Structures are given as structure tokens and as C-alpha cells.
């Protein structure tokens, strides 16, 4: 069974204090790993897709990296507007035509001014 575990569950940072969120996964063949941002009361917003170990993607203050067992979302010099829940999801090669995603429970990030 595919599993995704995110840590920490919650993270509080001061503005400008860089840190990383972790996503560990077990999947029978990885088709892709996805990061989403979810603001309170809203649906997840797509951030990145990573397909193979060693791949990196960047967007503003966020950088996502991927190894064979985990992914990191690095946040550099965060601002209060980066506060949100960050969700990680994997798509298995075995998910067939649906290509359904298996989600972790998320990391709730709070950036204090």
C-alpha cells in the first residue's frame, strides 16, 4: 500500500528564518511526487511536480527536491504570506488510468512577522 508521511505536523518560523519540510514515501514505483499549498477554507493549490531522484524545482522562496525515499520543501527567508498547510502527494505507476494521488496529512506552517 502506498504511504506518505509528512513531518513536522506543524512548524512555526520567524520571518526570514529558513527551514525545510519533509515528505517520506513508500510506493511501488513512483510516477510522480507533488507539492501543494492549502490555505484555510480553500482547495489545494498546485506547486511542483518531481519525477526522478535528484530533480529540483524552484518557485520564489520555495525549492523542492526529491530522493528515492523522500522529498524536501525548502523555504528560504519565509514571509508571513507563506503561512499555509503544505501537502505532499505521490502518484504510483500502478495507479492505472486514474493516476490517483495518495496524500500525506500535511505540514501546517506559520511564519510570524
Amino acid at each position: 500500500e502506498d504511504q506518505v508521511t509528512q513531518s513536522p505536523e506543524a512548524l512555526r518560523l520567524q520571518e526570514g528564518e529558513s527551514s525545510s519540510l519533509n515528505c517520506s514515501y513508500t510506493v511501488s514505483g513512483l510516477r510522480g511526487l507533488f507539492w501543494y499549498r492549502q490555505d484555510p477554507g480553500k482547495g489545494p493549490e498546485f506547486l511542483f511536480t518531481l519525477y526522478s531522484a535528484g530533480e529540483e524545482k524552484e518557485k520564489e522562496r520555495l525549492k523542492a527536491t526529491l530522493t528515492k525515499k523522500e522529498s524536501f520543501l525548502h523555504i528560504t527567508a519565509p514571509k508571513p504570506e507563506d503561512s499555509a498547510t503544505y501537502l505532499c502527494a505521490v502518484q504510483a505507476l500502478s495507479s492505472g488510468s486514474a493516476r490517483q494521488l495518495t496524500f500525506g496529512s500535511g505540514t501546517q506552517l506559520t511564519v510570524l512577522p
Partner: protein
Amino acid sequence: GAGVSQSPSNKVTEKGKDVELRCDPISGHTALYWYRQRLGQGLEFLIYFQGNSAPDKSGLPSDRFSAERTGESVSTLTIQRTQQEDSAVYLCASSLIQTVETQYFGPGTRLLVL
């Protein structure tokens, strides 16, 4: 263009009643997904539509749950004889068939079963 929209945004119902949740995907998106998100948990896959057909219903938790899609557009998720454990946020997402990995989510319907 407009994003994915869902209605109602909130629904409170009594145990045993039926509810219908609606999803309007992004125009031209042939793939449509329903997910359930319980408080403090990740999203659970429910069902996938390719056009108007549902090749994968494996995530539907029981026969009380059903969904349909018409005109390769609007989808309705129906929950019959609701139970308290059905309380959750129900999220809809859509994507192009060519890029099913990039799913765009709606704001969700918050369902509370009393």
C-alpha cells in the same frame, strides 16, 4: 478563465438524509476527481471521471456514495442516508487528460452531518 467551482460551500444535514454536492470543472478539462478530506488528515481519493465515464470508483467508501458526470462538465457526488462519519470537506479537482498529474482543485464543500 474561471477555476473549479463547487456548491454548496457548506452543508449541514441530519443523519439519514441524502445530500448532493456539485462540481463545475475548468472548461475543457476532461479529467475530474473527487476527494474527501477529514479534519487534520490528508485527502482520500474517491472517484475519477474520464469524460462522462468513471473508470475508477475504487475510493468510494460504501454503496451510499455515488457520482455522475454529464456533458463532460458538471459532476454530482451523492451521499445517501448520511452518517456522522461522512462529515468532511469534499474536494473536486479537474485536469486536462494529457496532464492528469496537474490537478486544479475547487474550494470544497464542507459537510456536517448532525
